């Protein structure tokens, strides 16, 4: 599904978090949103998902199956949830739903009131769990899962929504290296095998360069750079946006750019 954002402005009170931002994302792309803290990347995700009010601008999606582009802001929550799924930072859950019940919640936009999920719904749930390697967790309470397992279950829930656009908001923020790589490679697989469009806020520039086709750098609510990882991840840009000195080298295996920290930590004898 294509996503077209034009003139997007979001304010929190008087503070402008996103100012007149325009961005086109094509069907099947895997786009990483990066930027320093407070650059507006999470806000952009939340504006697309409808979680924050938009002050001005347009957010439209279009697809071969649609006659005309759809204005996301005009859609009700259920219609939007059939197009867009969101996987956010790990959230704490106090209530002991089983993993399968949690994934089943992804069918909510499709199941009517006073109705139960049909066999077809559960088949979609099982497939989503299969694709995220969570089938063996089905009967475990979500409260008893590890952080990595829980994020995979929540990813399965997002897939059960059968979305055409997947938004990720720092999904690996609380995961260790192994689990981060595992989760992002699962996302990448759905992107490559089914053409699922992915827009992901990622904190880790190295991870972003490894996994995304395209990196959009946000800085003070505006786009500072946009392009393939090799074009975007440069010492100049990082010095300008993040304000820290780095060296960029090629990954010895993938050949993709990787950032090495310099600055006062290096050579200071610590």
């Amino acid at each position, binding site marked *: 599904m294509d996503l077209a954002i034009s003139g997007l402005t979001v304010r929190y009170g008087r503070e402008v978090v996103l100012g007149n931002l325009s961005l086109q994302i094509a069907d099947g792309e895997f786009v990483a949103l990066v930027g320093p803290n407070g650059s507006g990347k999470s806000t952009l995700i*939340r504006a697309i*998902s*409808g*979680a924050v009010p938009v002050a001005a601008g347009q957010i439209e999606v279009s697809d071969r199956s649609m006659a005309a582009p759809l204005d996301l802001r005009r859609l*009700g*929550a*259920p*219609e*939007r*949830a*059939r197009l*867009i*799924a*969101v996987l*956010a930072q790990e*959230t704490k*859950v*106090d*209530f*002991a*739903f*089983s993993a399968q*019940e*949690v994934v089943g*919640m*992804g069918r*909510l*936009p499709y*199941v009517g*009131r*006073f109705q*139960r999920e049909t066999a077809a719904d559960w088949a979609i749930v099982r497939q989503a769990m299969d694709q995220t390697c969570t089938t063996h967790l089905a009967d475990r309470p979500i409260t008893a899962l590890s952080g990595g397992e829980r994020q995979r279950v929540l990813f399965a*829930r997002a897939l059960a*929504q059968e979305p055409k656009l997947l938004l990720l908001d720092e999904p690996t923020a609380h995961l260790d290296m192994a689990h981060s790589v595992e989760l992002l490679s699962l996302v990448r697989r759905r992107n490559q095998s089914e053409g699922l469009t992915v827009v992901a806020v990622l904190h880790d520039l190295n991870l972003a360069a490894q996994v995304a086709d395209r990196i959009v750098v946000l800085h003070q609510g505006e786009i500072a750079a946009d392009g393939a990882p090799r074009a975007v991840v440069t010492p100049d840009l990082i010095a300008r946006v993040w304000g820290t000195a780095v060296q960029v080298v090629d990954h010895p295996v993938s050949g993709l750019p990787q950032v090495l920290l310099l600055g006062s930590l290096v050579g200071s004898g610590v």
Partner: protein
Amino acid sequence: MRRSAVWLLVLLLVFALVMAAGLGTVKIPPGEVVRILLGRPFGLAPDWLPQHEAILLQIRLPRVLMAAVAGSALAMAGVAYQGLFRNPLADPYVIGVSAGSALGGSAAIALLGLPAMAALVARGGALIAVGPVPLFAFVGGLVTVAIVYRLARIGTGVSLVGLLLGGGAIGSLAVSFVSLLLFFTASDVREAILFWMMGGLGGASWAKLLWLLPYVAVGLGILLYWARDLNVILMGEETAHHLGVEVERMKRWVLLAGALLTASAVAFCGSIGFVGLVVPHACRFLVGPDHRRLLPVAAVCGAVLLVLADLGARLLLSPQELPVGLVMALLGGPFFIWLLRTRLRPTV
């Protein structure tokens, strides 16, 4: 296993109703209770004492049925608030809704005064006269929960401390307003308010039961309508929005339903705490957190609990009668303390 547990609960409720209807200062054996109840529809020849029939149909039956309906109302209100606040400590009593309802009901009695009530009785009979009190109690409860919710809300979440403190503060404010009302009303009205506030199921009647039912039915209907959304809201409001829940609309309706259910119970039975706290927990343990199952199961469990608590209230110091709220507090207080201790460990 879960389905059989539900049927077991329904059986338990029927058993509790029959036992509670039979026990009291005048004992009617369970077999006789069943025969009297089935006597009229099935045309059984009466082999029981006519006094027993009168006691059962005029006094005991409306009382146990009211206990059952009020108990299920409070339990469902507890389920609704715990779901909405995403907090297992929420219940109509703890978050001050009960106190708000009490204020509303007292205000109704004070504002309308006794002559107006007497006129209502004269014109429309007892059925009409009991109407304004639950209506005002409902408004009082709704206003209270809205204020507590605003107070407890921080950013996108509802804080546990804010909820308990806000509920306590607004609750005691409501209670002090009731005292103020009592201070300024004439002595006969004051007595009427105090009598109403003491609550208990002693004044149960078919007329009150008829008034109670629609409140509870509407509350239950609203909650069942939003049951699946209540499941999702437990994952957080933003997540619920992403999964297609119309969050703001849902919150308004669930707050309304909770206030309806609480007010109906408070208006007819006085402030009864802890049913809304104990029952949802026990039921989650039985059938899990899915509200589509949890709501009906909690309704049945709440009914059983309050019927038994009322039976205890009647029997413990017989022929003296304890307020049922007191019995519930004796049962629920320790449970609440246990819950606080297990929920408020540093890791949580």
